[in-house]
């Protein structure tokens, strides 16, 4: 009796595995897909080589003057290089740049332990960063004490101003947004209606009219003679505006917490603020991290609007550099530079929020 031995499996056809197989299943699986793929490849062929040759192959990086770019067909990055200091620090006096560097360096050094898992005192450190760091940073930026030269806010500018505006906006809008969201869900009718009106008002108007209001109407509202710093006015406008959006995001989180959690907290005898702070908010905020970060990103992008009321943030200072008669005609380089900086920050924030979401995901979400 002979035992039946099955024929060994044939290897899959060459067209179904490996690179060819991948191509067949991903790009050319049907006639329509083939057309789409070929069309996309054609578009890439039209777009990518010129961009690469403009930005890298034929661009000029070396030199200090316009003459260096006289005979290049590509980008003239010399323009950005020559103005780099201004793009970063605005009209801040050159001898004092170290103060800005120190302020941001300090923030990075203080911030690093927050990302180290084994570090024990994260809460205390975070509180220190939120409460004392702004004071130190303000002293460094503005000066006037400790023998530092005073630098008016009108001379602040560039990327450092953008970061200051965004930082202040983020730090101010989150707590304000949480308070407004709690107020909107409050049992007290007057508190609730005040919060609703506040939130809907700010969400209903464009930021630019808010900034206009802060620059032309605020001086009318204040007692005669009081003068408000322009930068501070912009900061207040941005913070109030974004806090309304933040409130709506947080409210979404609060609404998603099951009622049992509220009742359990109450049953334990916790007061309103304790039950909110210890039970509800930690869960609610965790749920809406993507929304919160999206609001931060929107805030970061919105800081460019201060250009319209005459502050020199990164975009404004680049725009202003185009008017230099020595460097006319390099606007594309400038915009590309600004866009890449904004893009890196915003994209980085969105990726970080994704990572954070994954890390904090403790299995409640379905």
């Amino acid at each position, binding site marked *: 009796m002979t035992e039946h031995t099955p024929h060994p499996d044939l290897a899959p056809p060459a067209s179904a595995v490996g690179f060819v197989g991948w191509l067949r299943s991903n790009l050319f699986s049907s006639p329509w897909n083939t057309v789409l793929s070929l069309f996309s490849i054609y578009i890439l062929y039209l777009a990518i080589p010129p961009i690469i040759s403009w930005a890298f192959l034929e661009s000029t990086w070396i030199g200090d003057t316009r003459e260096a770019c006289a005979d290049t067909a590509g980008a003239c990055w010399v323009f950005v290089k020559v103005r780099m200091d201004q793009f970063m620090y605005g009209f801040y006096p050159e001898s004092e740049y170290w103060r800005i560097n120190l302020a941001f360096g300090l923030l990075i050094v203080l911030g690093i332990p927050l990302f180290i898992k084994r570090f024990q005192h994260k809460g205390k450190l975070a509180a220190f960063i939120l409460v004392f760091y702004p004071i130190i940073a303000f002293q460094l930026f503005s000066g006037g004490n400790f023998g530092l030269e005073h630098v008016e806010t009108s001379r602040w500018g560039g990327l450092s101003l953008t970061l200051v505006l965004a930082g202040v906006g983020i730090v101010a809008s989150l707590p304000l947004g949480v308070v407004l969201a709690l107020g909107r869900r409050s049992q007290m009718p007057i508190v609730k209606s005040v919060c609703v009106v506040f939130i809907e008002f700010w969400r209903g108007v464009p930021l630019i009219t808010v900034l206009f209001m802060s620059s032309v109407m605020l001086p009318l*509202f204040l007692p005669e003679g009081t003068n408000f710093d322009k930068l501070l006015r912009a900061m207040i406008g941005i913070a109030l505006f974004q806090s309304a959006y933040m409130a709506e995001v947080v409210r979404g989180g609060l609404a998603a917490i099951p009622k049992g959690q509220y009742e359990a907290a109450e049953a334990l005898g916790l007061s309103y603020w304790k039950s909110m702070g210890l039970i509800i908010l930690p869960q609610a905020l965790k749920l809406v991290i993507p929304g919160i970060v999206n609001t931060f990103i929107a805030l970061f992008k919105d800081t460019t609007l201060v250009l319209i009321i005459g502050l020199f943030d990164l975009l404004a200072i680049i725009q202003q550099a185009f008017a230099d008669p020595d460097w006319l005609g390099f606007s594309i380089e400038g915009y590309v530079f600004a866009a890449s900086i904004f*893009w890196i920050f915003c994209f980085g924030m969105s990726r970080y929020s994704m990572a954070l979401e994954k890390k904090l995901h403790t299995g409640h979400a379905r």
Partner: protein
Amino acid sequence: MRSLFFQILLVAGIGFFGYTIFQNTLHNLEQRGISTGFGFLDNEAGFGILMTLVPFDETYTYGRTFLVGLLNTLLVAALGIFFATVIGFVMGVARLSKNWIVSRLATVYIEVFRNIPLLLQIMFWYFAVLRPLPGPRQSIKMGESVFLNNRGLYLPSPVYEQGFWLVMVALALAIVASILIARWAHQRQEKTGQQFHTVLVALSLIIGLPLLAFLLAGMPLSWNMPELQRFNLTGGMVVIPELAALLTALSIYTGAFIAEAVRSGILAVSHGQTEAAYALGLRPGTTLRLVIIPQALRVIIPQLTSQYLNLTKNSSLATAIGYPDLVAVFAGTTLNQTGQAVEVIAMTMAVYLVISLGISMFMNWYNKRIQLVER
């Protein structure tokens, strides 16, 4: 008791705050010699506006500048919403495509344009792309009668001749008839289960009837072509570069957000729905139309309206490049000329508030309506 105390405190605080501001404002206005009230709206404006949809020149009033600005804002918002929706739906579906290269391209588009400030994009299109274009004599020609130069985009404009109203009447009739047919077909299907090719019939009605009227009336439509003269182009219609830049930036930027909304909406419909539909014997096209899209729309539409609202509010960035929208014309030039800061800003904000509250009310109504469907 405690809550009552809190609320009284809050009311008192707000009241005091409001009163102080009111008093300060009155005092400051008096000091500067600015009279309050809306009387200034009847005064002659004395400045020209780059682009107006209604007749306007220096002799019209400030009130008219409000109307001009409002119409320009609505124009750019309507066009922007149209283009952003088209871009957004195409890109959102493309991102979910099984075709690797198509989905990658859509992802790159979304991630790039979502993360760059809109103002920067507007200024890029205006100052770096449209402004440096050659003058009218060296216009870039696209086809025979479309010209692009630093004064704008020149397009042929339609000229309606006598008898064109017939075509419009035919179109209206066709639309009404299609709606009636759709209703009848739906009722018949409910009763007997027999289906009717509503879409095909409606399409042929809507295209065929006006076409017939057009031919019968002797083709009462001609095109006014832009032509190159010695120094400029004449004829046709022109899209000023300010409008073109604003529209491009707004559509591309908002399109990226709409694409994400579309994607999340489609992903929100669980795969079991598709499988169940297949199990019932529905074909892929029918599944998409009757099962997936209605459920996805429930997620997409709220996000879509909020993006439309954002686009409308973002159109106020027109100020940066000088497109004469409501904020640029009214809260800009008119405010500077009259000094009536309180009235002008209040009117401007009121316009945006009315638009956004109106849309929120629509949203609440819509959300309630679709919640009834849910079981």
